[in-house]
C-alpha cells in the first residue's frame, strides 16, 4: 500500500517516484477497492509493476484514495501470467505477430520471460542514466525510457507486450471491472450469476427499468431515464427517397 501510494500519488501529483523495493505489495481488490495482499514479488515483477504504472497510471487524491485506477489496480501482473493472455492479446491485435516458438507455447510466458522483459526495461534505463535500474529512475526518465523504447523496433516488442497486458486487464479482460467503470460503464451487476450487465433502459441512478411494465415516456419526461434509444425518427433527407434503394423488407434492392 505504501509503495502503491507512492507510485500512484507520485504520478498523479507529479512527485518523483521512489524506488519500490521488491517484497510485499498490496493490490486493490477488484470489487470493492479494499486492499489485499499479494504474494511476494520478485525483482523482475517489481520492475514490471513500475512500468505498468508508467504505461497506465493510477491516480489518487491527497488522501491516497483512488481517483482513477491504473494498470496495477486491475492486477495486470496476473493478466501477464495468464496462460491465455498471449493468444487473447494476439487475437485482439494488441500484439504483433510473434516468433513461432512463443506463439505456440504461450505457457512460456513465465518467470523467464518476465525476467527478459524486466531486463529490457533496465537496458532502456541505462540510456537515460547509466547503471541505474528502471525502477530507480525518476518518473520523467522512466517515461523517456519508454518513449525511446517504443521508437526502437526491437525493444518495442517487449513494451508492446506490457502495454497489451495493461489495457487488456484495464478494459475488463481480467477479474477487475475498475477500468471499465472508469470509462463510463456501469459496475458489473451479478458476477456470481454470470450476468455482467443487465442492460438498458435504466434510470439515471442506475435502476434497471422494465420496459414492458413501466412508462418510459413518463420517466423520460421526468428527466430520470437513461436510455440507449432515442425513440425519435430522424428528420428526412431532402431529395432522397430510400424507397428507390430498399425494399419493404429493409434490404437493398
Amino acid at each position, binding site marked *: 500500500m505504501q509503495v502503491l501510494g507512492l507510485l500512484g500519488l507520485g504520478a498523479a501529483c507529479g512527485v518523483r517516484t521512489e524506488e519500490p523495493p521488491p517484497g510485499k505489495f498490496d493490490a486493490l481488490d477488484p470489487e470493492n477497492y479494499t486492499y489485499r495482499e499479494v504474494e511476494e514479488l520478485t525483482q523482475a515483477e517489481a520492475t514490471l509493476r513500475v512500468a505498468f504504472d508508467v504505461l497506465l497510471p493510477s491516480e489518487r487524491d491527497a488522501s491516497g484514495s483512488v481517483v482513477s485506477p491504473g494498470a496495477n489496480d486491475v492486477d495486470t501482473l496476473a493478466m501477464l501470467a495468464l496462460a491465455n493472455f498471449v493468444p487473447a492479446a494476439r487475437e485482439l491485435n494488441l500484439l504483433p505477430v510473434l516468433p513461432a516458438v512463443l506463439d505456440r507455447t504461450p505457457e512460456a510466458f513465465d518467470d523467464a520471460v518476465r525476467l527478459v522483459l524486466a531486463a529490457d526495461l533496465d537496458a532502456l534505463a541505462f540510456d537515460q542514466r547509466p547503471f541505474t535500474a528502471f525502477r530507480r529512475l525518476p518518473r520523467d526518465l522512466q517515461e523517456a525510457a519508454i518513449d525511446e523504447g517504443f521508437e526502437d523496433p526491437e525493444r518495442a516488442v517487449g513494451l508492446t507486450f506490457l502495454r497489451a497486458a495493461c489495457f487488456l486487464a484495464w478494459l475488463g479482460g481480467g477479474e477487475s471491472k475498475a477500468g471499465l467503470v472508469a470509462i463510463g460503464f456501469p459496475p458489473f451487476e451479478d458476477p456470481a450469476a454470470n450476468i455482467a450487465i443487465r442492460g438498458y433502459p435504466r434510470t439515471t441512478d442506475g435502476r434497471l427499468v422494465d420496459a414492458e411494465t413501466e412508462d418510459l415516456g413518463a420517466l423520460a419526461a421526468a428527466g430520470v431515464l437513461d436510455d440507449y*434509444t432515442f425513440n425519435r425518427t430522424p428528420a428526412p433527407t431532402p431529395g432522397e427517397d430510400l424507397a428507390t434503394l430498399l425494399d419493404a423488407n429493409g434490404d437493398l434492392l
Partner: protein
Amino acid sequence: MHDVVIIGSGFGGAVAAARLGAAANRVLVLDKGIDPTGRFDPASDGPPVNEQGNRFAHSLSPTYLTEIGELFTDTEGAYRDGVASMNVVTGKGLGGGSLLYDGVSLRAPQLVFDQTRRGRRLWPSGFDRAALDPWYRVVEDKLRVHKLEWTDATVPHWQLATKRDFVFAEGCRRIGATAAPLKLADYQDANEGWWNQGQRFSGRQDLTKNYLADALASGVEFRTGHDVDTIAPTNDGYVVKGVDTRGGRKVEFEIECRVLIVAAGCVASSALLMRSRDHFVGERALDRGDEENGRAVLGQNLSSNGDYGVTGRVGADFEMRVESFKGKPMSSFCPSFWPEHQFILIPFYAAPLYTALEQISTLSPPKHPDATGRGSTTVAERDDGRRHRHWGFDFKRQLTEFGARSLTMGCLALDACEGEIGLSGDRVQVRWRETSARTEERWSAAVDAMRRIYEALGGELFLDNYRKDGTVNTSHPLGGCRMADEPTEGIVNANGESFTNRNLFVMDGAVIPSALGVNPSLTIAAVAERMADQLIRGDGTEALSDRLA
C-alpha cells in the same frame, strides 16, 4: 461408417447439420472448438457451464476471446509499413461465426450477383437475388430476423435502434444521405445491448439456439475438440483424419463417411483442402484450374467483403452524447452510396476493447487529414518527430473521455477478392497482394463520406486503426473455394459438390464467389439451405438417399 460427416458448424455447417440430419441417419458434426453450451458434446472442454447455460461470465475474458475467436494473419507482411497484408478474424467453436457476429442480416442486392471478371459472371448460373429470396426467408424465420424501428410506436422497446444510430442518421442527413434501421437476428433478450462486451453470453441469436438445436433433436452427433488435419478419398467415401484434443489429450482419429461436407469456415475449409491436396490426384485433383491452365483456384479469390472501419468523435457542441458503448452492436446503416460506389456504412458499438485494438492508434490523428483510402491510415507524428504516445496519463484520459462522444463506423463494400489463403509449414496464412484501383476508389469514397459525417456533427475522424500499415482487416472473409459453372473457375459446382469428387461438398463462406457488400451470414446460410435442399431432393443432382443407398 457414418452416412454424413460435416466438418464445421457455422452458418454453412449448422444449416447442413439441421437439414441433412433430418434426412439421413448417422450424421456427425466435427468441430475443432468447444461446445459453449455443454448441451451438444458433454465431453467438450471449456470452463464449467453456468446457470445461464453457457461457459462465459462475460465476453471480455481471455478465455472467451481465445475459445471463440481465431485470427488468421500474414506473418510475413503484417505490421510492416508499406507492405500490404491481411488479418482475418473468424469464429471458433460450436456455432462458428455466430458466436461472434452482430446479428446483422441483410440480403445481398442484385448487383452482387451481376458482377463479372474477364467477361464471365462470378456467380454460377441460376444464382441471383430472386432465386435466393425463398432461402433468405427460410433463414430469416429460423434466426428470428426482424427489422428494427426508429420509434417504439409499434414494436417493443428492444426492437429500437440506438441513440448512436440517431446521431449517425443526423450526420448522414447533413451530408445528403439517409440512414435506415437494420434487420437483426437477436434473442428478444432483456440484455440486448452489450453483446460484445459485458453481456452474458445468451443474448446473441447464435446457431446453438436454432439450426444446431434442430440437428441435435434429429439425432445428429456432435464431437468438439476435433481438429481435422486432412481428408482423403476411399473406395466408397472419405476418411477424415485429425486429432481429438478434448481433455487435454491429443488422440489421433480416423472417421469414415459416405458423404463429406466441408464447412469449417472460409479460411479453414480452403486450408483443409490445400493440406489434403496430395490425397486427391489425377482425375480426382481438387483444383482443375491449377491442373489445366496453371492458374490455381483453391485458396484464391479471398474477399475481405470490403471491411473498413474508422473511429471518430462527435463535437462537444453537438446536441447529444453518443454513448456508443450502450445498446446493440449494430442497428442502422446508410445505403445511399450503394448505387454509385457499392458500399454501405454502418455505425457500430464502440466497445472499449475496440479502442485498444492494434496499437491503440484509434485515437491518433492521420498524417494527412484530407487523405482518403489507405492514405488516411498513416499516423501523424508528434511535433518532436516521435510517434504518438499510446500510453500514460494523456492517453488514459483520452480513453476515459472517449466513450461518450465516440462514434465508430465502417463500410462494407464490393472488392476484387484480392486476398489469398496459403500454407506456411503447418500454419495457415492469409495474404493481401495488392489493393485494386477499384477497391481503393470505393474505400476512398467511403472514408470521405465518413469524414464528412463526423465533420457535419462538429467532430473529427480519427485514424482508421484497421489499416494503419496497409493491413486489411476483415471479419467477413469470403471465397477461397468458390463455386462456379466451370471446373477451371471454381472448386465446387452450384450444388456445392466438388467438380472432381462425388459426395465431397463445401458449404460455407468459402464457396461464395464474390464480395457481398453486406454482412454475409444470411447469404452463407441461404446458399447452404439451397444446396442442402437440392441434395436432399435430388434437384439438379443425385439425391442424398441414392448416394447413401
